[in-house]
């Protein structure tokens, strides 16, 4: 199947897998960073009361819909040689792209994890209290109860990172062999009238998205089935 497509478009396989690998690395690293920041933030917003909390939640929800090109532009201005962070020399590097992905995925993961945690039935926390849980144990129990919703949030974050074009194009620059990822290649090749490579990459993108979603769903299912988490419940 792959050979057929490669033949069809006479793509250099090395280049193709380079693009695929970089795409995975950029969205994967971005998502990982975003998740690492989003989960503590979501837990804090859901479980602690502090002034300005609602404002932060509103900002998160607003940024869920942040147009990637706008973020790209902002990052470009920040990272360009003349910009405040220009000295770091990050523009047109994979690092800049990872940064963009992190910022794009963070509000989605955080907002969805937050609503998963606040939607846990309050009686769960009360039960934890009556059974002798400390404040920390109560929080842990409530978060654990929200785990399926949290995983869904991470899935949605991956969906966004994977499909993202505008921001990575602007801050990555679509440099062949260095910052060229699947979405930017598709945009470029389509622009050149070279549809075959675009279609192949599009299919790979789709397949990847399917694979990751299947893997995560499996994880969810396993969590739901009896016995699987005997040892994981602390």
């Amino acid at each position, binding site marked *: 199947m792959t050979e057929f497509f490669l033949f069809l478009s006479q793509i250099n396989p090395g280049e193709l897998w380079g693009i695929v690998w970089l795409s995975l690395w950029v969205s994967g690293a971005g998502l990982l960073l975003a998740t690492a920041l989003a989960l503590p933030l979501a837990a804090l917003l859901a479980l602690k009361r502090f002034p300005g909390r609602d404002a932060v939640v509103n900002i998160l929800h607003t940024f869920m819909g942040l147009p990637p090109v706008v973020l790209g532009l902002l990052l470009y201005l920040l990272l360009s040689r003349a910009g405040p962070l220009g000295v770091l020399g990050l523009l047109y590097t994979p690092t800049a792209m990872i940064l963009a992905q992190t910022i794009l995925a963070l509000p989605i993961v955080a907002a969805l994890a937050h609503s998963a945690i606040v939607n846990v039935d309050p*009686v*769960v926390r009360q*039960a934890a209290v009556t*059974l*002798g849980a400390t404040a920390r*144990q109560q929080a842990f129990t409530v978060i654990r*109860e929200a785990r399926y919703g949290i995983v869904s949030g991470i899935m949605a974050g991956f969906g966004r990172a994977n499909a993202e074009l505008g921001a990575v194009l602007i801050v990555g620059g679509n440099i062949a062999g260095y910052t060229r990822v699947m979405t930017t290649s598709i945009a470029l090749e389509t622009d050149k009238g070279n549809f075959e490579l675009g279609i192949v990459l599009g299919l790979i993108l789709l397949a990847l998205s399917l694979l990751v979603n299947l893997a995560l769903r499996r994880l969810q299912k396993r969590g739901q089935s009896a016995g699987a*988490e*005997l040892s994981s419940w602390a």
Partner: protein
Amino acid sequence: MGLRIEVTKVAKAYNGNPVLRDCSYNFAPGLTYALQGPNGSGKSTLLRFLALLEAPDTGSVDYLENSTVLPINLELRRRFTLVLPRPGIFNTTVFNNVAYGLKIRGVKSGEIEARVDTILETVGLSHKRSQRALDLSSGETKRLGLARAMVLAPEILFLDEPTANIDPLNTDIIEEIILKMKAGGQTTILLITHDPAQAERLGDRLLLMKEGKLVPG
């Protein structure tokens, strides 16, 4: 010997409507109290105060041992437990639900296994051990809530309507369990019920919530 609860002039109003008014009572260790009263009379509210889930507007709930008032801390909280009318089952296995209180107390896993299995036997849920707890029927859910509390061997057990919406057979099973605990003589039990016959069967002392006060039933 044993924990004594002193309720002194407890009052609570919700949105200006008084629910409890100058409610005072002393609960002696080792007895089973059956509390009755109309819907909305404040029974569950009082139980939440006793279990230190919430604090009243005025008045106090004190725990005494050898005539000394105990400080309210985790150690004290872990000596009693409350089973809520909707027990708040965790989305995990039956076993893990019962093991929860032991795990958070840092009990060793071998001991947890043994204690949980004994209790599951007692409440007739051994065959559901590895099943997802949220899939249980409501009668089984009630028994699981009870098991989760009993496994901790609490000195005081607060039960808010342990047999509400339960069929006669399951009601019998739950009453059996309560009677067994009662026979052990180690546990003070305070249960809320709407069934006068059940109050008679289980209670050493019958109480009534009347106009925001506890009165002998």
